[in-house]
């Protein structure tokens, strides 16, 4: 590191001291490193929303806790620092050949014969949300059977001059995108609209955590049990007319977020990838939403609009095809188009929802007024819950039409400003 850079990061450290970071931590964030991750490919049994059980293929994490150690769908959330040298070692416990690749990272692709191990090494690219999956043979077969997960690349230079943390490599953005992202993240916690104060600043999840109160990963997918029936423990998945033409024969009967749907999304369980965003007014949460299934989804949020931070250009004719696009004009959306293999980052600002409570005596309450008003109500006390459902309507069902047992969940407002004793995380 050059001395001039050190001075720059030192200054950023002072500026972010209010966000709870020591200058040493800021320095640590600014250093790329190495990361070695050991994954395994195995099979697990999954209970679907209607009680039926299917076999799935799953990644397991060496040194992971609980379900991650034995295999879980989706695979573990991997977090690495931009620029760091990442080595991923994959062991194939199954009887057929598998693949491993990371979409959007050239060269991060390998093949693993039955019972053997393969390694990929790459330098972590620009910050953003990446999908790792098994695309062996050029078909989505193993991906839809459960071999998928998220790699989050944290930025090296993600802090604005004013000291606000962002999820992006600011130095690699076009000037207009840099300005837009900086303006938004600087506004958080400091303006009348974003009232959170120091707690209103966005913070990345800890590097060893899958999710945090300010960051949630959502992996949209679909399940067609006739494909899962191909999986038997200890046996090879045989070629068949189904495996020969996955895209045309796949008819999803279950639609999932993080491999759960409907009622099973209403709470988070030990060892599973958390889904439900729970936070306080003025304290934004970042959603990293990807679609690894074969159906289009349109996640629609009630209660707040979301800031659309990044997406992948999926237009094959575009010059930026396959790249992460950080817009120069950040739109507010309530519905987001998730085509297969789309990856989007959206910020749920946790603003005061406009509709609740109906007894509110002033039109523009401050967060603390809001807290007091809601506390007085018997009908709808905290937590306020707002629906998230899929506007691609059929994905709200499961098992051939049961509504609302598909891609339907909610997010929660736990309280207004100052509504809690502050906890870490």
């Amino acid at each position, binding site marked *: 590191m050059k001395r001039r850079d050190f001075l720059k990061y030192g200054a950023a450290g002072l500026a972010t001291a209010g966000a709870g970071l020591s200058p040493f931590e800021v320095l640590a964030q600014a250093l790329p490193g190495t990361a070695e991750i050991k994954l395994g490919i195995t099979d697990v049994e999954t209970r679907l929303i209607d009680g039926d059980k299917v076999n799935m293929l799953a990644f397991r994490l060496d040194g992971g806790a609980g379900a991650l150690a034995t295999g879980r769908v989706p695979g573990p959330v991997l977090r690495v620092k931009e620029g760091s040298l990442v080595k991923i070692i994959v062991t194939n416990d199954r009887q057929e050949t598998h693949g491993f690749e990371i979409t959007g990272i050239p060269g991060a692709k390998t093949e693993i014969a039955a019972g053997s191990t393969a390694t990929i090494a790459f330098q972590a690219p620009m910050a953003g949300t990446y999908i790792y999956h098994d695309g062996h043979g050029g078909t989505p077969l193993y991906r839809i059977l459960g071999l998928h997960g998220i790699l989050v690349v944290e930025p090296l230079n993600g802090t604005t001059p004013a000291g606000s943390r962002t999820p992006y490599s600011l130095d690699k953005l076009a000037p207009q995108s840099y300005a837009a992202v900086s303006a938004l993240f600087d506004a958080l916690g400091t303006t009348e609209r974003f009232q959170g104060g120091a707690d209103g600043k966005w913070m990345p999840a800890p590097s060893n955590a899958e999710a945090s109160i300010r960051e949630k990963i959502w992996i949209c997918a679909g399940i067609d049990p006739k494909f899962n029936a191909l999986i038997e423990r200890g046996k090879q998945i045989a070629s068949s007319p189904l495996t020969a033409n996955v895209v045309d024969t796949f008819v999803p009967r279950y639609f999932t977020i993080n491999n759960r749907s409907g009622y099973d999304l*209403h709470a988070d369980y030990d060892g599973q990838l958390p889904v439900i965003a729970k936070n306080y007014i003025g304290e934004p949460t970042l959603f990293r939403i990807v679609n690894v299934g074969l159906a289009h989804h349109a996640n629609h949020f009630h209660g707040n609009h979301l800031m659309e931070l990044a997406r992948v250009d999926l237009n094959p004719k575009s010059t930026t095809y396959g790249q992460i696009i950080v817009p120069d004009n950040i739109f507010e959306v309530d519905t987001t188009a998730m085509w297969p293999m789309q990856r989007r980052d959206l910020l749920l600002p946790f603003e005061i929802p406009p509709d609740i409570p109906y007894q509110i005596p002033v039109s523009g309450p401050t967060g603390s007024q809001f807290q007091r008003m809601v506390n007085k109500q018997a*009908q709808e006390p905290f937590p306020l819950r707002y629906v998230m459902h899929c506007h691609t309507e059929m994905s709200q069902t499961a098992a051939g039409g049961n509504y*609302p047992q598909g891609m339907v969940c909610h997010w929660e407002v736990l309280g207004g400003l100052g509504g809690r004793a502050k906890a870490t995380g």
Partner: protein
Amino acid sequence: MSQNSHPGQLVPAPTFSRTGAALALTVLLGLLTPASAHEGHHHAAVGAMEASPQVYFKAPPPPETLGRPFELMDHHGQTVTNASYKGKWLLIFFGFAGCREACPTGLVNMEAALDTLGEEADRVQPLFVDVSMEEPDTTGLAQFVSNFHPRLVGLTGTRAQTFATVRDFKIRREYAMANYSSKETGPRINHTTYFYLVDPEGVTRAFFDHTLAPERMALTIGLHMKRRSTSP
């Protein structure tokens, strides 16, 4: 609107008017009889509906198409199926033991209807199926059903068992979180609130709303039982 609408097709709902009210009553009565018996009413009413605004509702399914043999667990933890109630008519209500609205209302009406039926009621087995998605709680269910008809049996089951049953009877259930009413302690489920009358052969013969007056409920059940006993 075509002249050949029948249950299952979309038909425009009437505006609120005398005609509309009469039509609504026709549809309601239709629920109480086999679908084939009232098809003519639909045809007769179509002309009157043509001028009304295009508000659509779906005609109800014929009762015979609802339900299938089930396997569940009773509130003593014993496995039960249709065959467990051989020779009996089943009067089934679907809900959840934590319910403070439709379920108690319906089950009180059920008790009153069976009382009205008198001795005939001995041929009817009242059942309450808990369709919540939590793990079965037979203690809570037993406590809940003890508030109603002495022969009322509470049924629950594994996720797969209850799911199959609600699928077969086309029961809609939707979780709303607790706290909407301070009297509720657990999650609230918005659910279908019909009674289903199943004959001893396992064929669903009628369904009707839980707020139907107990005398009407008794009359309906009695008529169906009489009809089946005279023309097998």
